[in-house]
Every structure is written in C-alpha cells, then in structure tokens.
C-alpha cells in the first residue's frame, strides 16, 4: 500500500501536532495534560506514514477497509481523551469549591479579627 493515498491524513496529524506544540509554547495548555493528546497524534501520524503495517494490523483485527480501522481507532482515542478531561475537570471543580469555601472562611475570620470591638 502506498503512502500517496494517506498523505492528507499524515498532514492533518502533523498540523494538529503543530497546533498543540504552539499552544504549549504559548503556555495556553500544560504539558502534563497534553502528553496523552500528543501520543495519540504521533500514533496516528505513524499509522499514516507506514500504511502497509497499519493495513496488516487492521486485517489481523478483522477490518476489511483500512479507513474503518482508522475511524474506529480515532473514536476510541477521542473517547478516552474526553474521559480523561472529564476526570481532570471534576477534580478541579471539587478543588475550586474547597478553595472558594476556604477563602470565604478565612475572609470572615480576618474581618472578625480586624473589626474594632
């Protein structure tokens, strides 16, 4: 199988990788949370660059058409990334709530301490 057929897919992955790297450089996203995203993009890029190997893998897994295999992989990868983001978001939400509560309690304590008797 020739790489010619899959170069748009490879270019798309490379472009997305560039966007992620750009966001990292601008400190819009943190490296810790982006590693899984970068890994997924690199895997897809490699899959597009070596289509023979990808096609063999797809056949072994019972896929008749290579694009179906790639779509399936992409859906699973996105679902996992989304779940991971959901976990992070939930944890942050709980932390934000506790911080908001702590801030309010400390403010009240401070106000009481500085209030003239």
């Amino acid at each position, binding site marked *: 199988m020739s790489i010619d057929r899959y170069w748009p897919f490879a270019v798309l992955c490379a472009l997305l990788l560039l966007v992620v790297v750009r966001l990292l450089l601008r400190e819009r996203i943190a490296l810790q949370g982006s590693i899984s995203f970068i890994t997924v993009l690199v895997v897809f890029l490699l899959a597009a660059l070596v289509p023979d190997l990808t096609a063999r893998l797809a056949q072994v897994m019972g896929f008749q058409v290579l694009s179906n295999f790639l779509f399936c992989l992409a859906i699973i990868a996105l679902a996992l990334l989304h779940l991971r983001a959901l976990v992070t978001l939930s*944890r942050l939400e*709980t932390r934000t*709530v*506790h911080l*908001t*509560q*702590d801030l*309010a*309690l400390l403010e*009240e304590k401070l106000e009481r301490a500085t209030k003239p008797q």
Partner: protein
Amino acid sequence: MRLLIVIPALNEEEALRALVDEVLEARAALPCSSEVVVVDDGSTDATVEVAVSRGVRVVCLCRNLGIGGAVQTGLRLAYREGFDCAVQVDGDGQHPPSEIHRLVQRLAGSDAPDIVVGSRRLEARGYQSTRVRRLGQRWLRFWLQLVCGLRVTDPTSGFRLYGQRALALFQRIYPYDFPEPESLAVARACGLRLVDQPVEMRARQGGRSSIAGIKPFYYMVKVTLAVALAYLRNRGRRFRNLVVAMNGLSPSLAAVGRTGGDGGDRN
C-alpha cells in the same frame, strides 16, 4: 454544648431579615450556647447587607456553589471552630427557628444520634409541599430504603442537626447538587446514626425555588442515581471515612484531621 446555626442563603433578602430575627429570638429557648452564621452563596441582591445589619456572622462565597457547597461551608466552620453540633436552617424561611430546640433535644442523653432530620411527614403538621414534590419524596423514601436500608420519612428535608461525627464527615464529603437525599446515603454508608424528629415547616417566605420548570425531572433522575452511587462509593471506603469521622471525637486526633483532611479533594 455549643451549637452553630447555619443559614445558607441565595438571593433571600425578602425572607432573611425576619428569619434571622426569629433565629436570634429562638436562641433564648435553646439549652446550649449558640452562634448564627449566614452563608451567602453569591447573592446578587441585598442578602449580605441584610445579614450584616442583623449582627450575625456572615460568610460570603465569591461564586455560587449551590446549596450543598454553602451548607458544607457552614459545617466546615462548625468543625474547625470546635462546635459540638450544627443545625441547618434554610434562608428561604421554610424552617421555623422555633423548632430548632426540638432537634437539639434529641441530642441529649447517652445514645445521641449523629444526625437529626426534621420531618414534616411524621406528624403531617404545617406546610406539606406540593403533590408532585410529595410524590418525589415518596419515591426517594422507597429508593433510600431499597438501596441503603435507611428508613427516613422526609428525605428532602434540609432542616437537620449534625452532631460531631456528622460534622467531621460532612466537612470532608458533602454533595453539592440537590444534596439532602444523597447526604443521607453517605451518612448511612459511613455508619452514622440518623433519627427523624417531627417538626412543623412552612411555605417559603420569599424568593424563588431553584427547582422549577423541568428541573424536578432532572432532580429525580440525578438524585436517584446519586443516592445509589454515593452509597456504593462510600461503603467501599467505609473504614477510611469512619476513621476521619472519629477524629472529630478526639481533640488530639482532631488536630491531625484538620491539618490533613481539610484539603481533601474528594466529594
């Protein structure tokens, strides 16, 4: 014994003035010393000004956390400042402060429960809420008994008294969205003892209910799922939660619990 009266309020300027006055009056009938704190959940009206003008303690949350977050703030305050118990009195005026002493009385004696739930169903006096809500309450009663084996007559009542162990537990773990039935499941899973106390309630004295429009349907689905999840989740961690809860009983261990447990990000 020291009691903290926690009043969570969101845009309750209409009802709050009379409510705080009633609470201050009701304190005289209590068999213990007490303090009052209004937890403002990010109100956009004059709730804070009203509370400040009555001379009670006011804790202002910088953003809206929901009723659960506001109540937990009060419970955390009670736990940190070493109160023996805390009572929740909603800022909409549905819970008559004159009934607080009935909840407090249940804590007397050696076999004191951890949570006293004020129930409008036991004696069916006063305001009984709408028919749809009563149907929802019936379902939640059935569901709590089925899932947790917990018999409680008014699972959506927010008029509650929390003892030391309950404070120690809920300052760490308290649901934020529609918290009443879910918090009962958490308490049950962690081995706390709950009792019902008949109380008289009344219709809200001002403001608007947050459960309106299609929200009751979302409420039922969410709470049904949340009760089951909360019970299963906390049963699995029963031992750890109990150890943390027990810290509230021992001054030396409490210090450890306060420094190590407050920042916990579980909920």
